[in-house]
């Protein structure tokens, strides 16, 4: 348990989602194990004592947008309801607690009795894991991701509303929204034939996606077509820890051992069938998610569930963008027909799929290009929308 806590504490710091000095991780085995700043641990202990779960994490995000998000919420609004895939599918909504209650373990625990993760103004994000520290880490990342996406969408729509917000955004732009450079990365030149070499390349490319802060570790999947078998990351696998987490899935379904494969197996299969590609990379880069949700056809459109029902193929910076829910929710049917020509596709509120015809280098470069374009375009639009509104 101690090793797991140390590992996920380090991951939160490394992926930039939490201030390394403000992460408290607590877990119950038959005794309590706690790591973190002394001022947070007593609160964490009180919260955990009130819940029938294994683990809790209390951490302050590395950027102040969480607090801005809470302060921008008007009145007694009890929760945030973003519409990105993470929130829509796994969180439903994110309860908020105001600053006055940030030290009240009873109120915090009461919200955590209902939801996996919450936002506490002046404290940050508090998330639990029913079974393991890894779960608490994933729930923290989900809340962080959803809140990040919502904040950027809100700012773009409403401008800067609070003192200090524009300056903070300038910091965010500097630390998070710079173009990603990949000149330092190397990729095996394909096509890859040796199974050991393929698995090693998948593991390496997975580490790249997280190392470049392109994708959070639990928010993506990857595959390689090896003859009549697809090698694909398992459900719940972390992109930076793929060794031993790749399932071989035969195309003819002669074995079902791959029932543990990623929930996007159907999409990967359809894309391979439609394109003849060898490699697929899928992740949820934050700005790509944000930009996928900006639709120029909204005026006069009466579709409410855009992520599911929108029949259009839109283009975001030249990348075809479609609707479709994850797993068996229809995404596979929507992405496969549109991805072949450009080698990339966006899914509304969800993330990016990219292709490699012979190796992962092409897929990785495409993923970076999509995200870089979205970062630049977002900043350009924000500048346009907020000129004159800043405080």
């Amino acid at each position, binding site marked *: 348990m101690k090793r797991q806590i140390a590992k996920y504490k380090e991951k939160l710091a490394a992926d930039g989602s939490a201030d390394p000095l403000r992460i408290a991780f607590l877990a119950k085995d038959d005794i309590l194990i706690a790591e973190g700043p002394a001022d947070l641990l007593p609160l964490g202990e009180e919260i955990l004592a009130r819940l*029938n779960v294994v683990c809790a994490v209390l951490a302050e995000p590395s950027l102040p947008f969480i607090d801005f998000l809470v302060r921008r919420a008007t009145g007694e609004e009890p929760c945030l309801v973003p519409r990105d895939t993470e929130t829509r599918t796994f969180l439903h909504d994110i309860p908020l607690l105001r600053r006055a209650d940030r030290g009240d373990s009873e109120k915090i625990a009461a919200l*955590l009795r209902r939801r996996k993760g919450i936002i506490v103004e002046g404290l940050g994000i508090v998330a639990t894991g029913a079974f*393991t520290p890894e779960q608490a880490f994933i729930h923290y990342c989900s809340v962080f991701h959803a809140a990040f996406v919502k904040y950027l969408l809100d700012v773009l729509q409403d401008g800067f509303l609070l003192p200090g917000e524009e300056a903070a955004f300038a910091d965010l732009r500097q630390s998070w929204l710079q173009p990603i450079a990949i000149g330092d990365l190397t990729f095996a030149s394909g096509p890859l034939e040796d199974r050991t070499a393929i698995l090693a390349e998948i593991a390496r490319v997975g580490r790249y996606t997280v190392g470049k802060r392109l994708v959070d570790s639990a928010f993506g999947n990857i595959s390689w077509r090896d003859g009549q078998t697809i090698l694909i990351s398992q459900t719940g696998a972390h992109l930076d820890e793929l060794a031993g987490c790749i399932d071989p899935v035969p195309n003819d379904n002669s074995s*079902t*051992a791959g029932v543990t494969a990623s929930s996007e197996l159907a999409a990967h299969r359809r894309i391979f069938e439609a394109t003849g590609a060898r490699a697929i990379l899928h992740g949820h880069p934050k700005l790509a998610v944000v930009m996928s949700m900006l639709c120029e056809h909204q005026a006069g459109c009466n579709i409410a569930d855009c992520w599911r029902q929108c029949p259009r193929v839109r283009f975001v910076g030249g990348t075809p963008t479609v609707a479709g829910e994850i797993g068996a929710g229809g995404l596979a049917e929507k992405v496969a027909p549109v991805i072949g020509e450009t080698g990339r596709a966006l899914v509304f509120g969800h993330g990016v799929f990219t292709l490699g015809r012979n190796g992962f280098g092409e897929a990785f470069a495409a993923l970076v290009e999509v995200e870089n374009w979205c970062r630049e375009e977002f900043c350009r639009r924000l500048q346009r929308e907020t000129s004159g509104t800043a405080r």
Partner: protein
Amino acid sequence: MKNSLNGWHGSMLRVDLSTGESRREPIPESWLHGYLGGRGLGVRLLRDFYRLEPLAPEMPLVFAVGPLCGSPAPTSAHLAVVSRSPLTGTIYDCSAGGRFAWRLKSAGIDALFLTGRAPRPSVLAVTPQGVEVMDAAALWGRRIEATVAALAERGSVAAIGPAGENKVLFANIIMGEGNSVGRGGLGAVMGSKNLKAIVVDGDRKTVIADPQRLQAARQDVMRLFKASPVIFGQLGIAEYGTPTLVDLMHQRRMAPTENFRRTVFDAAVNYSGPAIRRAFEVKKDGCFGCPIQCKKSTKQGEHLPEYETVSHFGALNGIADLHSIVRSNSLCNELGMDTISAAATLSAWGEAQGRFPTAEEMGPLLEATAHRRGIGDRLAEGSRRWAVGAGKPQLSMSVKALELPAYDPRGAYGMALAYCTSNRGGCHLRAYPIAHEILRKPVPTDRFSFAGKARIIKIAEDTNAAIDSLVACKFSFLGASLEEYGALVSAVTGHEFSPQDLKDIGERIYLSERFYNLENGFSMADDVLPERFFCEPGSSGEGIEVPAIDRARFTEELTKYYRIRGLTDAGRFADAGFLERQP
């Protein structure tokens, strides 16, 4: 009786089969809020009876639905049957899906509470208008299909077969569509009451407090089902049924083979999910109203076996012939007998004989068991009693006399612990650690490590006790969680239940069951795996080492589990007044 509740009807029907008398009576609201329904309500209703012998006429047999039954909540057409098991001696419940549960709720009751022994073979008919106890002389001795066919016009049927009539200790109660109330021999309890079948019908609606919230919660659940590879994935249970696990268990080297002497059976490929699909024109089937439809049947309507059944009638007995396995499954269903215990008992017997039953011998042995003919009379007592009687107790691969299902504990240490802490004996479903140790849901855990498993098992047991009381299907939780089901039950009842509230209820139910068991003489000595698992390794290979379980580490984690549960290091209650403090 006017009902001011949403979700529940707030009433139960008591029937004394000895006299034929019946009466409806209200269920205290505190019990509904404190135990929900299903398993929990059944456990509460047994509080004054749990010391009775399982086959004593006064021992209640409770059929209880939950607040979700009768609503559009996914996988909620389920009920629990609760009594004391003649096989294990423990408090016992079993969840089963199907139209029977729905119709029982439509009869206007949350629970059917049966006591006594009918003077002659009988059928009980329940409707909102009343109760009728009918003569069943013409049905006694008949198999399930014939019994159901004879009664189907009157409503949904739950019946026993010859195995229940003959009090085979692992006799099932079978619902009209083929769903089993399985494992612990509640069919024998029904048989001991001279009750051949129950038929229910009605038109009472389940009142829903907040239909709009229910619809939103339902959509959340469906979205999670679609996101779950195990449920709606291309290789998931909606496509292949639970036999989709055959290839996975083979690959993980944890498929019990030849009475658990080995853990790999190369011929398992003959009865894998894809093999079954190839051999039969498989159609989707399943519980009434369930969107998953994980059961599979032939075009002619013959039910195809579940994972545990194919593996135990296959690998556990060294049988590679799929058609023989399907025949064994169908025969058990017709005779009203549990497939896991039947196959495991025959496997223990086979090991003692020096050879396992052949495919050809399987049918006659099952018939002999159900009718208690010849050797079948001893096999009908289950593997523990048979093995002790034969002077070879070590051959019974069971915990608390309940035969272990098809997940070898040497390949999943949470499973090893959960078999022992389960209040109904060696069952995989109480904590269902296969979800995280094998299927990676909700999060993967290291299957070859005990670290952290004590608390995980405790929390999962609490969670599943709540699920069994809602009542919902456990497979739902390979996608959804108590967050979504908390929203469903809050929407249906109008009473707010958070996921933690539900786990608190689950904990109360689990501890009540353990209290009953301890009062009936169970102790830490019963919370243990068969010796084989501590001294014989599994079948290592292909880079996977399957050693014997480290006994010291197992015991350490079990002691830790007791501590986490708030019990003494010997697994007992420090507080003798625990039950009195519960609603």
